[in-house]
């Protein structure tokens, strides 16, 4: 009985940390979808760019993971801001299908550039020494890095909640998501709110890209390989709903972790059945609106 509990708890921590990484990536995407009705296929590409920038900082400048993190995130955010000003201006103006194709094009450019710069090998970033190994509580052993990851991302999720629910900027953002036209009428610069949110979304994706290399190792096809998973999280959560994304991301990863442990031969099959069920009952997601 006791061993069931210990395994159960370590699996929960694994699932939780993976789910929070998924949430950090999907939070930017769901807001982009909610505010501008823009499906940004290139979103995972920003996580990838963050991860690779940190890789450069670690390898060439000898920085530790935690020192490289803020620099890599800042660089990705600046890149996101530049792209938002240039290429994305074109992307906003075309049809829904055109937007998807253009962002796929941007993703291809990211993949090719990363491959040209770093090669096609798989990389993971080194864990800081004080977070290596595992903590032991009687019989339960918990990976230190995973726990650290869970705590950091829960803090960030709390920060996001605070900004959105308690600040002026959050109020403007919520107004823009709920009714962009009305928001414009009361004097909110929706474009600017969106640009700021877009950059913040890129930064959040970059944090996930840097911290999550254990679960999502860096490789040039990062941008497309993990996109489907993130899209599923966003679709199940409902467009524009951060709460939905959080629940979907945690539900996805925890269910998936347990299912894979209990039925290893079936792989990711269980999560997809659950997903099909949820989407056939609620096509617009848990917290989505038509």
């Amino acid at each position, binding site marked *: 009985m006791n061993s069931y509990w210990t395994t159960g708890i370590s699996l929960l921590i694994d699932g939780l940390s993976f789910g929070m990484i998924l949430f950090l990536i999907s939070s930017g995407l769901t807001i982009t979808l909610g505010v501008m009705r823009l*499906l940004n296929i290139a979103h995972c590409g920003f996580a990838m760019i963050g991860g690779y920038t940190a890789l450069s900082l670690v390898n060439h400048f000898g920085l530790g993971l935690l020192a490289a993190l803020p620099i890599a995130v800042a660089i990705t955010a600046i890149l996101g801001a530049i792209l938002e000003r240039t*290429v994305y201006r074109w992307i906003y103006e075309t049809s829904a299908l055109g937007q998807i194709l253009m962002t*796929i094009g941007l993703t*291809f450019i990211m993949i090719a550039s990363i*491959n040209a710069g770093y090669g096609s090998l798989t990389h993971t970033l080194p864990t800081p020494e004080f977070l290596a190994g595992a903590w032991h509580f009687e019989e339960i052993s918990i990976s230190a890095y995973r726990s650290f990851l869970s705590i950091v991302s829960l803090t960030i999720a709390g920060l996001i909640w605070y900004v959105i629910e308690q600040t002026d900027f959050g109020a403007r953002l919520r107004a823009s998501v709920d009714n962009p036209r009305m928001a414009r009428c009361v004097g909110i610069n929706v474009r600017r709110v969106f640009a700021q949110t877009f950059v913040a979304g890129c930064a959040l994706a970059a944090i996930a890209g840097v911290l999550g290399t254990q679960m999502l190792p860096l490789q040039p096809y990062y941008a497309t390989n993990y996109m489907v998973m993130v899209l599923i999280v966003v679709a199940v959560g409902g467009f524009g709903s951060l709460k939905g994304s959080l629940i979907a991301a945690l539900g996805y990863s925890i269910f998936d972790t347990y299912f894979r442990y209990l039925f290893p031969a079936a792989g990711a099959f269980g999560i997809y059945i659950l997903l099909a069920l949820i989407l056939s009952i609620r096509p*617009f997601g848990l917290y989505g609106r038509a």
Partner: protein
Amino acid sequence: MAVLKVTPSKDTPKRDIAASFGSHRLGLSDALVWALAIFAYFFLGAYHQLGTQVIIMIILALSLDLAIGYSGIESLGHAVFFGIGAYAAALFALNVLSEPLTGLVVGGLAAGAFGFVTGLLVLRVRGLTQVILTIAIGAVVLQVATTWKSVTGGDDGLAGYQVAPILGRYSFDLYGHTAYLYSLCVLAFVFALARILVNSPFGYVLRGIRDNDQRMRMLGVPVAARLLLIYSISAAIAGVAGAISAQVTGLVATDSLSFLLSGNVLIMLLIGGMGRLTGAFIGGIIFVIFSDRAAAIDPFNWLFMLGGLLILAVRFTPQGVGPWIDRMGGYLLDRRRKP
């Protein structure tokens, strides 16, 4: 079904009316494509395998055009039907019968049936939700194919099945000459079917739904049923494309279900132009040949160029290059008429 009658007013030149019903007529671009296909059979024997790939992609792009271009169903998961058709044809050849034409029918029916079932879910929503649902369904099926190794062979792919000679006479040769003609014949059949379909009252109803579904509903059109029908037909055609691919290459890999293939077909359609059938031909030829050449030289730079081209193409020619070719054709014909 109500018949649409257009009364020409006096100041509308006849040319304009003819232009708006241009889809009835076989244009210059049609003639060019078929001439090219036959030319390729006689003079480009070494490229028949590539030619077969082009034709398979054209059939797949045609099926996608029926869904997106004519009916406004935004699908980014058409590779699913292609892959299901391919696996169905391969499994049929492996376990039941190696006759190819029956295999085509089986592939088409399997994909069509899957299209019918998923259509019940996908067609309930529109726009971005629809796109994401089609992507998600693609991911599910890909996962099933990768996991269910005893049937699909998993990542190793499915191979080792024999395909009997077509009609008991023409066997598939190593150089792909038979495969080329075989797929060309299927393409001709599918193209004829698609033309009849889009020019029928049913085709006009579909375009009506695409442009304004609420209005069609008010006119008494059973919108959901019509969309489900065209989605199933489109899925079946994609399945036929997959079945040909399985038969002529003798291998089905999980790649045939991938998101990348769905994306590539959409790009082909974008290059050629949507809602015009010929777009599939132009896009398919340009995309497959360029990607084959460029990938042979340097796959990653090709990806970079493709990305850039994609952005510029959507930005500057949202209608694709199809209309340019028509305009060039029209220009040539006009010159000939005037002294």
